[in-house]
């Protein structure tokens, strides 16, 4: 395996697929020696497995939590990130200016857990961590529902595969604690996917803190309140944005009777974590934590624009099947996922000039 930095200026990371546990472990130790970085060691981050990927373009939808994650990063990029993160930790509330540009290319996997916590402003957040521990001792009325959902969350991922294994146990605890923390939203199906994505990068207490911030500070919980009223508003907004930015597709969808609630519930409610390959899920969470809740619109439109050509050829059933099967499969490669992020960022810039 070659770990040298990429020669392409556009590809600071190099995608190398690890084929075995031994190789994976070797990669981990090499990388740690390169960066000598503090990572959430002995935690799920290390267990991000190279999920068996069915490379054929079959008819099967991807299971949540599947896909290969690039864990190799060039030394230059890692050093740059490392410097930023160290400085950032000294003054956690002033976000480094260079950060945005770096994030558009994805946070190095080894630093992701820390950077997510810094972005969400919960780095070493003691109060919330204490609350978490306290909540775990309480009775939880939603327990039966949560228990039924745990094994249906990221079933493709080794960490969450085993019944009553560490992954499922952590997922249960976070979901339980959140349902008690947020009396209004309680436990709502969809949250477990987001919690699972976070758990792959940090210990459960920290993952709980980031989840709370995403729901409250980033405003994701507004979607779940009052019978999903705000979600319906988001669907309407997405429809309007499509008319402006994917006009042809909007017309086509109207002609074949496709409406956003038929395909976008998961996008909004789980932050794209429930259907897409892990690498893309992580890129999206990177961007969401850096840019905020409008990221969901930027990604949604970028997804639609990306597949416009294909979608325009399809009828009602074809479109729905495309969203279920082909669209998530499209982002199994890192380059496609990264292109999508770049397109979403372009839309963000465009929106900034138009709507502000």
């Amino acid at each position, binding site marked *: 395996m070659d770990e040298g930095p990429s020669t392409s200026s556009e590809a600071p990371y190099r995608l190398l697929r690890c084929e075995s546990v031994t190789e994976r472990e070797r990669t981990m130790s090499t990388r740690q020696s390169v960066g000598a970085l503090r990572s959430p060691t002995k935690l799920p981050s290390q267990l991000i497995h190279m999920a068996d990927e069915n490379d054929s373009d079959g008819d099967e939808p991807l299971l949540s939590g599947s896909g290969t994650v690039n864990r190799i990063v060039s030394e230059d990029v890692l050093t740059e990130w490392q410097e930023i993160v160290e400085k950032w930790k000294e003054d956690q509330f002033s976000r480094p200016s260079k950060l945005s540009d770096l994030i558009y290319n994805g946070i190095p996997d080894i630093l992701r857990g820390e950077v997510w916590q810094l972005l969400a402003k919960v780095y070493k957040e003691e109060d919330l961590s204490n609350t978490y521990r306290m909540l775990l001792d309480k009775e939880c009325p939603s327990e039966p529902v949560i228990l*039924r959902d745990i094994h249906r*969350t990221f*079933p493709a991922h080794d960490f969450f595969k085993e019944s009553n294994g560490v992954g499922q146990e952590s997922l249960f605890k976070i979901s339980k604690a959140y349902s008690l923390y947020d009396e209004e939203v309680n436990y709502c*199906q969809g949250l477990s996917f987001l919690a699972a994505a976070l758990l792959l990068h940090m210990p459960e207490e920290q993952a709980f803190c980031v989840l709370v911030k995403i729901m409250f500070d980033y405003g994701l919980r507004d979607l779940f309140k009052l*019978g999903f009223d705000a*979600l319906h508003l988001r669907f309407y907004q997405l429809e309007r944005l499509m008319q402006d930015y994917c006009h042809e597709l909007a017309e086509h969808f109207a002609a074949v009777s496709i409406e956003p609630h038929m395909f976008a519930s*998961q996008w909004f*409610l789980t932050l794209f974590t429930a259907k897409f390959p892990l690498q893309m899920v992580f890129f999206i969470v990177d961007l969401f934590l850096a840019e905020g809740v409008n990221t969901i619109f930027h990604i949604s439109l970028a997804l639609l624009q990306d597949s416009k050509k294909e979608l325009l050829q399809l009828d009602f059933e074809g479109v729905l099947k495309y969203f279920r099967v082909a669209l998530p499969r499209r982002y199994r490669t890192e380059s496609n996922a990264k292109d999508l992020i770049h397109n979403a960022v372009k839309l963000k810039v465009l929106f900034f000039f138009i709507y502000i």
Partner: protein
Amino acid sequence: MSYAYLFKYIIIGDTGVGKSCLLLQFTDKRFQPVHDLTIGVEFGARMITIDGKQIKLQIWDTAGQESFRSITRSYYRGAAGALLVYDITRRDTFNHLTSWLEDARQHSNSNMVIMLIGNKSDLEARREVKKEEGEAFAREHGLVFMETSAKTAANVEEAFIDTAKEIYRKIQEGVFDINNEANGIKLGPQHSPNSPTSPSSGNPLGGGRAGNCC
């Protein structure tokens, strides 16, 4: 592929009763023990034959958690058939049927055919709801009833197809206005207005209703 009619269905019921597995067994003829939780809605479709006619079924599978009902509700209107599913190994899913039924009746057209399904019939040892109880509930509320197993495929075809037969019968009786898509029924694109509802059973109400081809 061309079809004579298109019927829209919705599958409802508590979380974890096997709605998605029933749909997968019907559309793909397989059981997937490990699968994703349904968020919002999912969709599946299959062609069946009734009375020598090709009928396309388009099926919405919904999230079961109570809070998702505001999303599910928009799918009742425009459904000709509903599969209301409970789990024979969980009494609570049977106890919630009344509330599901109220919701369905309130938001759907009054002719929607509702099939009550007691799923997981393969788990006889863990049964909490007797078959007779399901039958009695169905009788009381005017539903068709069946016990199924999405795992072994027992009665799964029958559940979807018998619902379609009931809808088809209602069309022939002239109960459904097939020109109003809000009823969850659509005439096939290539079917002439002369014969789509001509009653093979000799029902006099069948003919002549299909004025406009869509």
